[in-house]
């Protein structure tokens, strides 16, 4: 590799990646218009909750949580793969991550922001949400730290802040690149954002340490946050929720859905942003392997849930799972099994795995399947719990569907904005992959 070649490759990478920051194309505008309409519908739907009451949703007694909490868990789940791919794969020195970690992290940040709204959206009296914040007040009252919901508040906030930090620290060198290639007001903005990064050896040294430490902190955080989310359910005594398997089960499910969502996002981005050279079939193959692995884990979890329910001899547990598989919500359950346990297994075939369209279809199915999984767990467990008198059924109302659509609108809109503002590929890291580094035997 000659020096000139390196320079060319470096500049080529910059050009490729920074293209997305140039004037938006028609496609991007069309995409934004569509997602903004979705977001608008969601906002309108939420305005119904604000102006009328939470009763405009389909929730009832006994199903007090429904599609909104499903969305919460779903988006929190999606938020996990970003940090997972970034941090855990970084710790494991999986170098293939470099092309996609930025997108994954951006997805994390956007998804956790979307997720964070849902507890507020579903609250009966959102204007009292500040009661959950521990701050000194004249009432001398503090929130109840024993409540899993408060754990959620802390976990989600921590996760959001740490994810943003992690995302941002990773961005700093690239922001400097953008700064140096822009001028005028844009340059000013990127100057602010890049914090005066110079790329000095001293800065790089601390940068590396910091990135490693953040990755090391983020990794247990990823696991803890989704464990905490799962404890919202597992700590309660609702049959179908009250289960020790929930934490690993939810973490695996989160990673599963996250990987699928990355495929869903990455594939069109790669095409429309012309990143084929950076994001290669190899990456999709790796993601597919992760899908298979996670699918096996959650399939085992499904099996284990049912087995334990049967083996326990506990009438409540048994009924809850019987109801899940054969009750009112059983069609959703079986679609979920198809999407999460059967379709991903087909990716064992290398031929199918290399068929991008097939992979895409499977990824979309997994995203849907994971949404259904949360819905089935939440709703079917609640609908028939201890007291048969109080059993009931729930189906989301148009307002909830609107908000769900709006959350997708918000997610994709924010994601689109991020791709317009920040380089979609970690240029610095990709560049460093171009030279053989220590401990790397000639990859790339």
């Amino acid at each position, binding site marked *: 590799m000659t020096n000139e070649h390196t320079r060319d490759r470096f500049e080529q990478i910059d050009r490729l990646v920074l293209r997305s920051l140039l004037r938006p194309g028609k496609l991007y505008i069309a995409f934004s218009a569509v997602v903004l309409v979705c977001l608008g519908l969601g906002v309108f739907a939420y305005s119904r909750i604000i102006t009328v009451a939470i009763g405009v949703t389909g929730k009832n007694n006994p199903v007090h949580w429904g599609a909104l909490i499903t969305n919460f868990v779903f988006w929190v789940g999606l938020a996990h793969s970003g940090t997972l791919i970034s941090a855990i794969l970084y710790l494991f020195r999986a170098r293939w991550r470099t092309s996609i970690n930025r997108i994954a992290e951006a997805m994390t940040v956007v998804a956790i922001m979307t997720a964070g709204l849902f507890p507020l959206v579903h609250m009966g009296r959102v204007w009292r949400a500040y009661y959950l914040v521990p701050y000194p*007040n*004249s*009432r*001398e*009252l503090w929130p109840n730290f024993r409540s899993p919901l408060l754990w959620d508040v802390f976990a989600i906030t921590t996760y959001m802040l740490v994810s943003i930090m992690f995302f941002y620290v990773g961005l700093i060198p690239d922001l400097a690149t953008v700064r140096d290639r822009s001028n005028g007001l844009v340059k*000013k903005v990127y*100057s*602010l954002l890049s914090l005066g990064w110079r790329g000095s050896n001293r800065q790089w040294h601390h940068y590396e340490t910091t990135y490693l430490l953040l990755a090391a902190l983020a990794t247990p955080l990823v696991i803890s946050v989704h464990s905490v989310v799962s404890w919202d359910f597992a700590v309660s005594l609702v049959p179908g929720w009250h289960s020790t398997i929930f934490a690993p089960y939810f973490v695996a499910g989160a990673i599963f859905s996250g990987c699928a969502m990355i495929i869903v996002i990455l594939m069109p981005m790669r095409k429309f942003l012309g990143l084929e050279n950076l994001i290669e079939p190899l990456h999709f193959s790796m993601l597919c392997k992760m899908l298979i692995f996670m699918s096996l884990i959650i399939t085992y979890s499904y099996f284990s849930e049912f087995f334990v329910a049967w083996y326990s001899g506990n009438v409540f547990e048994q009924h809850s799972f019987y109801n899940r598989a054969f009750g009112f919500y059983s069609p959703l359950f079986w679609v979920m099994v198809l999407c999460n346990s059967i379709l991903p297994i087909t990716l064992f075939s290398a031929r199918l795995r290399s068929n991008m369209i097939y992979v895409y279809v499977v990824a979309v199915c997994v995203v849907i399947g994971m949404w259904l999984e949360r819905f089935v767990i939440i709703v079917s467990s609640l609908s028939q719990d201890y007291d048969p008198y109080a059993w009931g059924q729930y189906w989301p109302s148009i307002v909830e569907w609107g908000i769900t659509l709006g959350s997708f609108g918000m997610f994709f809109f924010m994601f689109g904005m991020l791709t317009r503002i920040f380089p979609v590929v970690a240029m610095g890291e990709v560049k460093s992959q171009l030279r053989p580094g220590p401990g790397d035997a000639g990859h790339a």
Partner: protein
Amino acid sequence: MKTIAIYVVIVAWFAAVVVAVAAFGLMQEPSMRPKQPIEYPHHTHVQDVGMQCLDCHRYAEKSIYATIPGTDICMGCHESVATDKPEIIKLTEAYRSGKPVGWVRVYQVKPHVYFSHKRHVLSGMKCQECHGPVEQMTTVQRVTDLGMGWCVKCHRTRGAPRECDTCHK
């Protein structure tokens, strides 16, 4: 410097929102000194005439409400006392017509609060401890926000019960 200026602008924007919300909230609060239909001078009645709170607010030690007296109580004296003063003429008119005087409430606990005047008066509290020096006021001015913090502070210092169900209903 420009950098700092931009940071300042961002912070100021959020601060402005917070202030606006707070101001809106304050506007919703009832006035601390509402205008009363009849200017009832507490200081004259207490300091000059020597009346006691319970003379008019008769049920403060019998009921959860202290109650505002009807015009018949006022007319017990004002049938003959100071009948020519404009405020008393208003009072007399109200009494004759039988229409209640539209006193504006100065102190009103929130509807979710159980507050018993009786319990507080019988425990030996002075009216002024909550209502301020009413005997020096003309129209009554509210001296507290009746917020939970205000209640709790006193309950804590006096060792009064602080169970939720003591006050919340």
